[in-house]
């Protein structure tokens, strides 16, 4: 294989990996105070992409305004999901995994409503301001500025998320709730309020992911399911709850996917990725960067 081809594959792999990492981080945000893995998170990313198309492409809203509106809308949907599908179920001690089905149900509703409203065709979304989809040549390296933008935004946004958990009292309160819910309550911290906030923020982050990824992925109502699975794979490899681990795992997974596309057809690629996840879990059940005892595996 030529160096150019290899580098081009790596660029694609890193870009897609960055997107997968962002999806994984949005899962983590909702997961931390609740231990709930939101099965509808992939659809929230899809909503981000589709609303971006509806507002920016169709209604010609300027990008900066558009992304704000999209983030607010999807955050509200995330909050709505928490109230309707999550809050009642995590309170029940007997059926403590009922949220698997209720969040799954919510995702089914979302994807099918969107299908009805928008149809399933792929749509175009404008790139990040200042970036384009045109390719740039740099020696043997070929890339588009949008791809670079995606990777940078992923890294920067994850840094922001980590900063919030490490340097704000609210972020530390979320970690406290994850560690010992009752002790948190006895300090006046309200787990239910933090849960609502977290789900809303997870929705916001998913929206950001959708808006930023859509120019490359093409917005369509069908992208949610694939992103759900990829996001899970990244978390499984990187370790649930670890955001930097998600970035590392995402980039790695993206490259494996990209390079294997030379030889493998989509079906075999899926199986390969699944096999990689299973092997990692066999050897490190808590992921490469996860912590023992922190999460139930």
């Amino acid at each position, binding site marked *: 294989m030529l160096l150019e081809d290899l580098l081009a594959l790596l660029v694609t792999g890193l870009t897609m990996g960055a997107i997968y990492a962002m999806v994984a981080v949005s899962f983590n945000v909702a997961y931390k105070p609740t231990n709930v*893995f939101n*099965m509808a998170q992939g659809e929230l990313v899809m909503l981000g992409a589709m609303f971006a198309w509806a507002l920016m492409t169709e209604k010609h809203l300027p990008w900066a305004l558009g992304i704000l509106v999209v983030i607010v809308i999807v955050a509200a949907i995330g909050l709505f999901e928490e109230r*309707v*599908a999550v809050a*009642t*179920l995590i309170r029940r001690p007997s*059926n403590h*995994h*009922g949220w*698997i*089905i*209720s969040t*799954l*149900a*919510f*995702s*089914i*509703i979302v994807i*099918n*409503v969107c299908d*009805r409203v928008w149809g399933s065709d792929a749509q175009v979304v404008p790139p990040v301001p200042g970036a384009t989809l045109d390719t740039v040549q740099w020696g043997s390296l070929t890339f588009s500025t949008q791809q670079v933008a995606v990777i940078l935004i992923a890294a920067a946004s994850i840094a922001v998320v980590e900063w919030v958990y490490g340097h704000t009292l609210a972020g530390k309160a979320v970690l406290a709730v994850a560690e010992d819910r009752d002790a948190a309550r006895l300090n006046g911290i309200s787990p239910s309020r933090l849960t609502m906030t977290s789900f809303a923020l997870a929705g916001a982050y998913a929206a950001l992911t959708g808006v930023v990824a859509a120019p490359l992925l093409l917005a369509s109502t069908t992208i949610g*399911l*694939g992103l*759900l*699975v990829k996001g*899970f*794979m990244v978390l*499984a490899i990187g370790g649930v709850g670890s955001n930097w681990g998600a970035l590392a795992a995402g980039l790695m997974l993206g490259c494996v996917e990209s390079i294997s596309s030379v030889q493998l*057809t*989509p*079906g*075999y*690629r*899926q*199986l390969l*990725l*699944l096999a990689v*996840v*299973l092997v990692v*879990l*066999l050897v490190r*059940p808590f992921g490469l960067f996860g912590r023992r005892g922190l999460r*139930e*595996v």
Partner: protein
Amino acid sequence: MNHSIASAAPRSGGSLPLPTLMLVISALLVLGGIAAALSGAYLLLLMTFAAVYVLAAMGLNLLTGYAGIVSIAHGALVCVGTYATAIATVRYGWGFWPSMLLSALVGMLFSAVLGLPALRLSSWYFVLITIAFSLAVTAMLNDLRSFTGGYGGIVGVAKPSLMGLKVDGFGLFSMVVIAAALLWWVMHNVMNSRMGWALQSIREGDVRARANGVSTARLRLFAFSFSGAIAGLAGAFYASAKGVVTPEDFSFDFSIFFLFVVVLGGPGRLAGPLLGVAAFYVLPEMLGSLKEYRMIAYGVGLLIFSVFLPEGLAGAIAAFDERRAARRAGTATPRGAAPAPAVAATRSAPAAPSERVAGMGVALRDLVKQFDGVRALDGVSLDVSPGSIHVIVGPNGSGKTTLLNMISGFYPPTGGSIRIDGTEVTGRGPTSIARMRVQRTFQTPKLLGDLTLLENVRFGGYVRERASGVELALRLPRARREARELDAEALRWLTLVGLAGRADERAASLPHGQQRLVEIARALIGQPRLLLLDEPAAGLSMGELDELGDLMRAIRQMGTTLIMVEHHIELVADVADSVTVLDQGRILAQGTAEQVFNSAEVVRAYTGARK
């Protein structure tokens, strides 16, 4: 013990029990389906598909409904079975029947392989792996298009032939119905035996299962294999009924459909899949409701049911049947009500309901347990002679429960050794220790709430049962005989604790104190040679304490060695042969009850008094 179909009327009732609502509805649905199938070609095809879906859903019900393992790969497994039959008959000229067996085998293998990660992973990890698997199968259908026919699919799947005659139309429909009926019977046998209870115990958390000596890994593998085989089998019929097999039929929605049918129909109930398919497939099809909104309706239904009606349709009907039976029996047992007075049964003779056993001795040497900075046990050495009753007492945090957990294998020791019956058992897991005929109870009772008292007690006999899975599935004579004998023994134990009159009630409806007594009875039917009790007297009323005393006498009669953690000093003084006092992980005093409670040191440890 007919759990789902038969009436829950008390055994002593003289009049014929009226059929339950569940039975009536199920019968009506089946008869209605047959009638519809006879009335025209469109309905015949619809009913054939419905029967295939019921068959497949019953397989998923075992995995997701009973064992509680949520899987979204079932549609993909049916797909695999469908394609296996299609390819075998069309490309390789096989007959239908061998292809059907191939489909079942293929389904079983795929499912077993899929299930391997589930042996070690938690529920939601596994759900996503099944989703990934489903997507992979869909993609592979296209990748292997020379084999599978790609988007065009495979045309001309053979119909089954019976004695030279091709079976189609109503014949094919009947065949599927008969297959489903046979499966119903087999599942009924399995679910009302130790295998079914063991599967349900997985749903409620492994701890109970392992404490009974159940190998959860093997059981899960069985659940996967079985549900996969059924999916494959259903796939074979599906291929034959459709005639043309294309990837379009097997989108991700197909797997969601099966999950939906099982969860909404009623998870963990035999009639669940029938109700699910009837209400959520047949009915919408017949009413011609807008197909485009079908999936949205499924999603909304799933959400509403999971929040408000987690037991599904069958669960709601079963609750109705229970209330009716309770009213007829004259005792109102709504859940969570004030405890019903314990039945004043005749205090039976102290003879133990089970045979004598050879009690095992226990020897602990320098046992240490360190948790993260806390030394729960700090060099404990102890000898318990076979057949004796030994009680461990001590203030809060002294390490009593930790000690029990270590003897029963739930915590591995940090240092020191444990010998049971002279054998070194240090580091062995709970299942392995349970198989040495060691039983234990927990601070909170861990009965299986949905099963009756009788079934719960019988489940304790898990390690004693000799009948194999196949014998249970087909109700062969040895299985039936064992069941009868164990039922009788279980009833004797329930009589000993004064609960024989409530043998057919759900364990979840029993007040706490009585649940504890039932749990001890369950431990005893396993004929343990060593029994560990964790605070058996906690929260018991005066009457229940009397029953507990009887239990202690029966245990002594049996010859079982008993090690017990207890606070209730009178009870301790009454029954204990020897007492150990723990304080902060070390032994403070050992001896008879009199010696120990007269020791000034012990009094001081408890009260800090220097008087």
